[in-house]
């Protein structure tokens, strides 16, 4: 066991502008916690897989080919699978960055205790986000492996779906953490649910963007999960285009904004 956190830490602890190895110690704390309740992490693998079996394959057999990235028709299963990976990356990061983060911030006062040590506010922000990414990364790897036997992986580019899923987790995780610092009660999270659901349903996840009339299509293209879905779908199908850089830039900027906001807000909340 003792080698694992150190290994994870060395590789993953993000060395961002205000980061440091100290953030990795918060990740170590979370590894301790989940060592006992690994079933929670483990069970998270299955949700996207159930969706893949049900919607992608069960329903997919009844649906013909749809237009994939670049316009060429692809099977519905191949169309849906990458979108499920992107949504799972979003959901996983948000779950960690809202409920679990809120519990530690407001209820358990975990971060107050941590700030009495040499750890700094930025370490807390980066450590928590880093943990959400590790968790999301595990799911992304597992999902990518699962879709191989379904014949959905035909190009080595598909491997890039894993870092792409991490980028989605980073973008949504950071922004959701920033939002959580403004939450006062558990009920406030209903609002977040009401944002996630339409993103999940309408971001070109279950049907192509071309279905929408022009104004709606532009609206969807402005929302973040669309960029994540199109990025991962293009990589798994193996169609590269300059648009992918726009997706990457959009998600990176979103994550960085979230990280700056969350650091500032934590400073305000914890260091008064």
């Amino acid at each position, binding site marked *: 066991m003792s080698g694992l956190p150190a290994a994870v830490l060395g590789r993953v602890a993000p060395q961002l502008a205000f980061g440091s190895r100290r953030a990795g*110690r918060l990740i170590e*704390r979370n590894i301790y916690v989940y060592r006992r309740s690994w079933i929670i992490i483990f069970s998270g693998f299955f949700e996207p897989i159930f969706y893949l079996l049900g919607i992608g394959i069960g329903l997919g057999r009844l649906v013909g080919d749809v237009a994939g990235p670049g316009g060429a028709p692809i099977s519905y299963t191949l169309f849906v699978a990458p979108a499920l990976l992107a949504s799972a990356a979003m959901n996983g990061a948000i779950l960690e960055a809202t409920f679990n983060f809120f519990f530690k911030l407001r209820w*358990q*006062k975990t971060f*107050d*205790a*941590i700030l009495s040590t*040499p750890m700094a506010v930025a370490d807390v922000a980066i450590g928590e986000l880093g943990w959400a990414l590790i968790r999301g990364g595990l799911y992304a790897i597992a999902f990518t492996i699962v879709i191989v036997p379904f014949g959905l992986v035909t190009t080595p580019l598909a491997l890039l779906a894993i870092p792409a899923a991490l980028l989605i987790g980073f973008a949504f995780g950071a922004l959701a953490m920033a939002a959580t610092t403004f939450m006062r009660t558990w009920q406030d999270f209903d609002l977040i649910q009401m944002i996630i659901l339409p993103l999940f349903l309408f971001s070109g996840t279950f049907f192509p963007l071309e279905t929408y009339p022009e104004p709606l299509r532009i609206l969807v293209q402005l929302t973040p999960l669309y960029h994540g879905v199109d990025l991962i779908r293009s990589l798994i199908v193996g169609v590269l285009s300059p648009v992918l850089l726009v997706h990457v830039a959009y998600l990176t900027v979103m994550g960085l904004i979230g990280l700056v906001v969350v650091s500032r807000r934590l400073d305000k909340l914890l260091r008064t």
Partner: protein
Amino acid sequence: MSDDTAVALDGAGLPLIHARGLTKRFGAFIAVDAVDFDVQKGESFGFLGPNGAGKTTAMRMIGGVSPVSEGTLRVLGLDPATHGPQIRARLGVVPQQDSLDTELTVRENLVIYGRYFGLPRDECKRRADELLEFVQLSERANDQVDPLSGGMKRRLTIARSLINEPDLMLLDEPTTGLDPQARHLLWDRLYRLKQKGTTLVLTTHYMDEAEQLCDRLVVMDKAKIVAEGSPRALIAQHSTKEVTELRFPVGIQETLDGKLDGLAERIEWLPDRVLLYANDGEAVSVAVHERGLRPETTMVRRSTLEDVFLRLTGRTLIE
């Protein structure tokens, strides 16, 4: 980068904590108002005062988690504004509210906390076991934190604050809310730390706690320091040797106007009793009876810090 390695900076003769004109404002509200104090190495120093006097805010500033609004503050010779992590590396903090990690076991709480200080994992484990022994929680090492009693949680928090072998301990209301037995056990552990030469800084609104643990203390009220000295010196300076407490049947106290005049150096009227300050309390109680007054109970006791506080602020410590 070698981050939180402690730097030896407390030069000879410099106090561990040095505050001048230390002020904390929250908007228009002044929580700590231009206070001066020093804490020397090896000393046990207390902030005594009622809730809301500014003690916790002062502690948070010393702990480097609350930015100073105005004035000078040096902790271990360093400025918390610029050297927060270096200072905190050498502090042990026991916050007013136990902030134990309920998702971890008793022992893991200590180990992980040590990791936050950058201690090697094996060292954390070794110290954790040692500290659990010290706070008498070894049998509970692998239990969850939630079911522990209030006193046990408090002891665990103290063990946690000792994981980095701090030069300076900050204890905010260490025994508030505990039953008498748990308090005495805790005092005993703190007393041992004091004996070993650990510098303790604590806040309390219990005068018995201040008397038990503090070599020297400041009395705080409404964001200001109103007195400073050792418990004994403060009592000698601001109160008489003894106090006679009289309790009258309901409704009688209000009719006593003037009837106690001249019996003591000073008389305090509390809602439920009358306190007569004099060096010979027995004599006072005899004199009360000679005046034909019949209190329900009469008690002669020595002056305490409670009396000092009452004298200085006109209010009691615990409302």
